[in-house]
């Protein structure tokens, strides 16, 4: 039962295809060809030595799904996301709202909050390593504590999450600011005349009108946090005993595909991750239809 399209609809569809064509062609060539390659590899065994792909069917899936480390690192990644996504978003939202007011030095603040995004990773790592240092670190000295921030498996995931929040605030904030810019100023003026307080305005105007941007950030950050890879290695050594309790699933993929040369197994891990994120995204999209305000 296909509905017949009207002329106007047909015209609209033609324009739409024209507009999406460059992006879709690019994505298919640049990204989907490698993704299909990965899907194929996940059914193959590659120990390498120039042997290439040997088809083994579902053996990789069996191995990956029954390995404890897969689930452990998936759980590690989820724990990390549970810290990074909410805190990163709330802090960034507060900062963006403050910076959207007419206050002095706004450009300077915005520039400062942007700086961590371009800072050399080595500098970031050095600072955090020193902060977390058990003997001479700032944190332990200030709190007169003796906590092993990054080598105690119970605490390490929180420490890593804090770095994650810190490094993502600038990114979220830039997006929030641009979202706030697109809210027409007259809404606030009208609300002020009606005598609505700042907090009321925030919840009745800013929150609903910003919800598309917020949803975008939530969606992209969930994906970003679940595909986190190198954050742990900025401050943790390979010998760190807490590593198995914080290593992410993409790290596991990297271990197999790059370090051990077992691309088939690595590709299967990617597939498991992809399936997981897809389910989450599907749920999110259902939520979006209900929760997000569309102008």
């Amino acid at each position, binding site marked *: 039962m296909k509905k017949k399209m009207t002329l106007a609809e047909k015209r609209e569809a033609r324009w739409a295809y024209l507009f999406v064509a460059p992006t879709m062609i690019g994505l298919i060539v640049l990204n989907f060809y490698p993704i299909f390659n990965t899907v194929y590899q996940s059914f193959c065994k590659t120990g390498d030595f120039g042997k290439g792909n040997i088809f083994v069917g579902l053996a990789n899936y069996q191995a990956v799904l029954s390995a404890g480390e897969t689930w452990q690192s998936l759980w590690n990644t989820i724990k990390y996301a549970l810290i990074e996504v909410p805190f990163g978003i709330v802090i960034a939202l507060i900062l963006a709202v403050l910076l959207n007011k007419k206050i002095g030095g706004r450009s300077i603040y915005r520039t400062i909050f942007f700086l961590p995004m371009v800072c050399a990773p080595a500098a970031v790592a050095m600072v955090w390593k020193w902060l977390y240092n058990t*003997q001479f670190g700032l944190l332990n000295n200030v709190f007169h504590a003796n906590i092993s921030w990054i080598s105690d498996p119970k605490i390490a995931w929180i420490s890593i999450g804090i770095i994650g929040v810190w490094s993502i605030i600038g990114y979220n904030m830039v997006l929030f600011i641009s979202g706030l810019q*697109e809210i027409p100023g007259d809404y606030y003026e009208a609300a002020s005349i009606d005598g609505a307080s700042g907090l009321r305005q925030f919840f009745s105007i800013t929150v609903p009108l910003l919800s598309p941007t917020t949803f975008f950030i939530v969606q992209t950050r969930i994906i970003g946090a679940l595909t986190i890879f190198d954050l742990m290695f900025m401050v943790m050594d390979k010998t760190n005993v807490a590593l198995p309790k914080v290593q992410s699933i993409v790290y596991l993929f990297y271990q197999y595909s790059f370090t051990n040369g077992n691309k088939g197994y690595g590709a299967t891990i990617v597939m498991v991750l992809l399936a997981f994120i897809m389910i989450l995204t599907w749920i999110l999209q259902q939520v979006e239809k209900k929760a997000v305000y569309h102008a």
Partner: protein
Amino acid sequence: MEGSIARQRMNKILTHIVLIIMSFIMLVPFAWMILTALKTNQESISVNPFYILPHNGWHWENFATVWKSYNFLILYKNTLLMIFWRVVCACLTATMAGYAFGRLKFPGKSFLFSLVLIQMMVPAQIFIIPQYLMVSNMGMLNSMFGLVFPGLVTAFGTYLLKTGYEGLPKDLEEAAMIDGCNIGQRFTRIMMPLTRSSMVSLGIFTAVFAFKDLMWPMIVCTNATTTTLSAGLAKMQGQYGSEYPTMMAAATLAVLPMVIIYVIFQKQFVEGIATSGGKL
């Protein structure tokens, strides 16, 4: 009336306090980078005793050493060109696709959009080898096109711009439709200018990602004259290894153009208010 002015002033001061504290937290690594660049090697790695400021004089010559050992002007040129082209490509393709996904109806829309999302869900490492092979088969190793190649289109940008277009009020476009504009004209003359803020943030992110993309320039450009800053920086890291002051001096020099770009771009944010406020 007086009370409310006093309250407003209080509010402002509170806002500044919060912002200053946050600025401090965000600034630390950056300040650290510059301070380390001015230290001696010995100072830079000592945790105990821990020096925040350079202790044995300020070693500005670290910057000179780095500047001399690499041809920074070429690196700046390549990096800025790569960033420029990636930003142009990303903004152009993403704004078109974003408009279609955000405002037009067409069969297969949700399927095509899910492809856009899937691209973001897989770890970027799986793209490296196939994309390298493509560039090499096209004979584009050691070329500007090779550098720009992975940034020709952007899934992230498409999604971002789609969000931007979805947020715009419907009546604007309807008015234009009544005036007899076709979809293309509606897009270029009315809708696109309104998503300026989203485009600016896409530009900023594309620039940052391109700048931080160390891996790609290194694999497609083995030639010294086509390398970009971050790849050059990584080479320096290889050379100086654990000499943090020199490394940090190099990193500081590398970051400068990015900061300048951002300062220019973020002015556009402020202008964004004026345009959208005036039209709506």
